[in-house]
């Protein structure tokens, strides 16, 4: 039994239902009845009535979008019949290489040992926040305490996953950079000096 026409009339509850559709389609979290009532400046009971209408409209077998009540409230999800297609969408192809920003940040952390975002930014000449966040999210670098015995900026080091991806038993197997300096500190100083001369 289908009554989709109810949603497109102009009666007030249908208008409220459209507002709720709009709120749910842009939400990143399930929304509670209270949140929906507050955002739409309407009454709880009417929101519940509208949700009833929408549940009827957005249900398995009838729509690819399904309205579901979960722990935190209400949210849209993909219909089960589309599970295979959704699986294909989210199955990312294996990525062949990292972006220049990620690669530079990773190389700095790998060669110079635990370092902070300001350290990385100084050497690269640009802010490192998004590159660092990206590498942390991928599990290639991780936090390793703070500078100055705990009070300073967060330091980052490479992870075991990094060693696996780069085929290294340990960091000591990294290709040597003797031409740039004998120690990590020397290389760091050299990179920092070059960075200062680079055009902004």
């Amino acid at each position, binding site marked *: 039994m289908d009554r989709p026409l109810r949603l497109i009339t102009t009666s007030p509850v249908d208008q409220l239902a459209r507002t709720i559709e709009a709120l749910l389609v842009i939400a*990143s979290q399930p929304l509670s009845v209270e949140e929906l009532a507050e955002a739409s400046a309407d009454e709880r009971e009417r929101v519940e009535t509208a949700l009833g209408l929408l549940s009827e409209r957005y249900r398995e077998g009838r729509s690819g979008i399904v309205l579901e009540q979960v722990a935190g409230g209400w949210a849209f*999800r993909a219909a089960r019949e589309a599970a295979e297609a959704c699986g294909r969408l989210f199955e990312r192809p294996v990525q062949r290489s*990292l972006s220049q920003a990620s*690669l530079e940040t990773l190389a700095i952390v790998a060669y110079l040992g635990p370092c902070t975002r300001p350290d990385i930014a100084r050497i690269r000449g640009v802010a490192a926040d998004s590159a660092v966040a990206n590498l942390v999210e991928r599990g290639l670098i991780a936090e390793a305490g703070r500078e100055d015995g705990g009070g300073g900026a967060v330091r980052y080091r490479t992870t075991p996953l990094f060693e696996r991806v*780069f*085929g290294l038993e340990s960091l000591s197997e990294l290709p040597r950079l003797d*031409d740039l300096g004998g120690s990590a500190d020397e290389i760091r100083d050299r990179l920092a000096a070059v960075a200062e001369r680079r055009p902004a």
Partner: protein
Amino acid sequence: MPPVVVRELELDLDAFEGPFDLLLTLVLREELDLAEVDVAGIVVSFVERLAEREQLDLEACGEFLVLVAALLELKARGLFEEDADLAELEPEEAAEELARRLEEYRRMKEAAGWLFERLAREGDRFFRLGPAPLAPQPERRLGPQSPERLAEVIRLLAAEPPDVSLGHMALQFPPVAQFLERFRSLLARRRRVDFEEAVAGLSRVEVAVAFLALLDLRRSNEITIEQAAPFAPIRISATDVEGREPWIARSA
């Protein structure tokens, strides 16, 4: 309506708020980085000021042009120190290049205006930022990587940046103090000095810096500047200690 006094022009820029002559002073004392100063903003302020009057104030225009040209030249030096070829351009070529750059900037300003209006119009378009609440978690897998790439990237970061020579700029951009001294010693010997004569044989950058030195001397009331007409010779004389007159840049 009173004449437009260029040096009293009130500016409201991102980097500076106050009268034009204070801005010049700060730039000369290197307390304000010229690269941060929006010269187009100064021009707009001036044009707005002019527009308040019914008649075109030629005198103010001439004075303003000279000041802004000097500022622009100094700023261009600072921003494009690697453009050595710019200094070798003939005046016509330089004017052509300047027109091209002004035109490019004007287009970008209009494009910015278009973006501003578009953003205002699209203010009621809401969309989701980030993943849907019940979406599957995407897994980002990275294929095997070569450690050589890491070494390569570090070597690139350690490579000397291309074409940067700071010596070039020091050479081309003489300190203002040098000209302050030059004018002071000239005026110690002579009652009146012709600006063109004093800067004869100098490069255009040096002339611009010399001119700014002149303005600084005028500010500290050490000299009086006179010019009979736009583009007429600029005459400089030492100010009598008792009778310090306000700055007069008269037209005939």
